[in-house]
């Protein structure tokens, strides 16, 4: 059984002439310890796919499962629990300094202040962002923001990490360090699903292409798509 499974998932927005198909019959399986990155252009459906994988939205058709359990039925238990959705925005309402942003979500879930503090520092160190704890998010560069966003998700000890465009706006040298970080988190047993508009961010991941709502590439870890070339009719 895969950790995350999307089975024949479709999603539409709008109605009538304004209807837009965001995902068409998408199937995807992700195992623990795997880094999967989906390349797609804007409006290809990649953000929708992440929202469905997070359980933030339900599919119109098909099922999204985590550990075999339908996300639509157990959403509240998953997001912020087994599923860590990395957000790169930091609301001033949640705190001033980076460390506070990493504490608030934990405290809201009943984790004790001392334990939350330990987890926050551990997550910052794990993502190489330990030196940002006393800074405000506005003082961070693009690469540091991503590291802190990942750290914030890690404080809740997810089994699946979801992140949209982890390398956008990050300079070339820092970009590879972010990819290396995601690969190392996967090597520690975490499953990570990211989306990107930059093919350079596919390195080290199982790479797929999302085009006009359709997913292309290896939908499972082990099975390469077998597309036999048909004999041409005369």
């Amino acid at each position, binding site marked *: 059984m895969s950790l995350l499974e999307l089975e024949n998932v479709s999603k539409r927005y709008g109605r009538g002439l304004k209807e837009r198909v965001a995902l068409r019959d998408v199937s995807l399986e992700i195992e623990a310890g795997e880094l999967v990155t989906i*390349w797609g*252009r804007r409006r290809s459906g990649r953000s929708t796919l992440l929202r469905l994988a997070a359980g933030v939205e339900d599919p119109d058709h098909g099922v999204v499962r985590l550990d075999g359990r339908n996300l639509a039925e157990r959403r509240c238990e998953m997001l912020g629990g087994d599923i860590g959705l990395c957000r790169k925005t930091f609301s001033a309402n949640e705190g001033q300094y980076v460390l506070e942003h990493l504490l608030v979500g934990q405290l809201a879930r009943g984790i004790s202040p001392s334990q939350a503090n330990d987890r926050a520092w551990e997550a910052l160190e794990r993502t190489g962002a330990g030196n940002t704890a006393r800074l405000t998010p506005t003082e961070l560069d693009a690469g540091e923001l991503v590291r802190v966003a990942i750290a914030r998700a890690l404080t809740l000890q997810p089994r699946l990490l979801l992140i949209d465009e982890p390398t956008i706006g990050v300079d*070339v040298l820092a970009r*590879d*360090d972010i*990819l*290396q970080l995601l*690969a190392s988190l996967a090597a520690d047993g975490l499953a990570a699903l990211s989306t990107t508009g*930059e*093919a*350079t961010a*596919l*390195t*080290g*991941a*199982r*790479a*797929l*292409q999302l*085009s*006009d709502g359709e997913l*292309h*590439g*290896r939908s499972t870890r082990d099975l*390469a*798509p077998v*597309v036999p*070339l*048909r004999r*041409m009719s005369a």
Partner: protein
Amino acid sequence: MEDNAAVQTRVKRSAGPMQSAVQWALLGLVIERPSYGYELAQRFETAYDGMLHLSGISYVYTALDTLQRRGLIEEIPGSRGGRQPKPRYRATTEGVESYKERLTAQIQEDFRRSRLFARQLAVFAHQPEAALEVIERYGDACLEEASHARLPSQQTGPADAISGLAARLVSEESRLSMEAKLPWVEYARNEFRALAASRARRLSRGHESA
């Protein structure tokens, strides 16, 4: 008796342009740093791992002989000394110039291959489903290539300045070329899908009128 220059001219004329990718790669390693046969074989394995295959160390000596006869490399005087003589080679000015020309010609060849692939795919204008199958495979190959490009920090072996630079250049070339190819795959898929849809409509109208 023929002098060296005369021999080299005669070799070049009789043998034509040097075609072997391995010989060009060995010339590149000599340009990078003067070297001797055994060391070149070891450096070859590290530098061109997964890109070129060396059939055996004896081929290195054959290739060095060819490169020398063509005047692309020369033996460093006095390097045969000692109990185990190891002649070391360095590139000649002509060797460096030829290597630069070869690199430029390879770029042209890459462009030509890409155009050829696109043209050859177009033969399926009347069988768009066949083209779509090829495009799927091409897209999968691009994704695999983008996925397997190594991060420079994952490179193994001694981290000297040249190998670090080479790793970054190879990785970035591979990844950025996929940056261009993936949108092309999308474009080609849309073109042939439109053809397939139009063909299906024509067939459907044909059935209706029959």
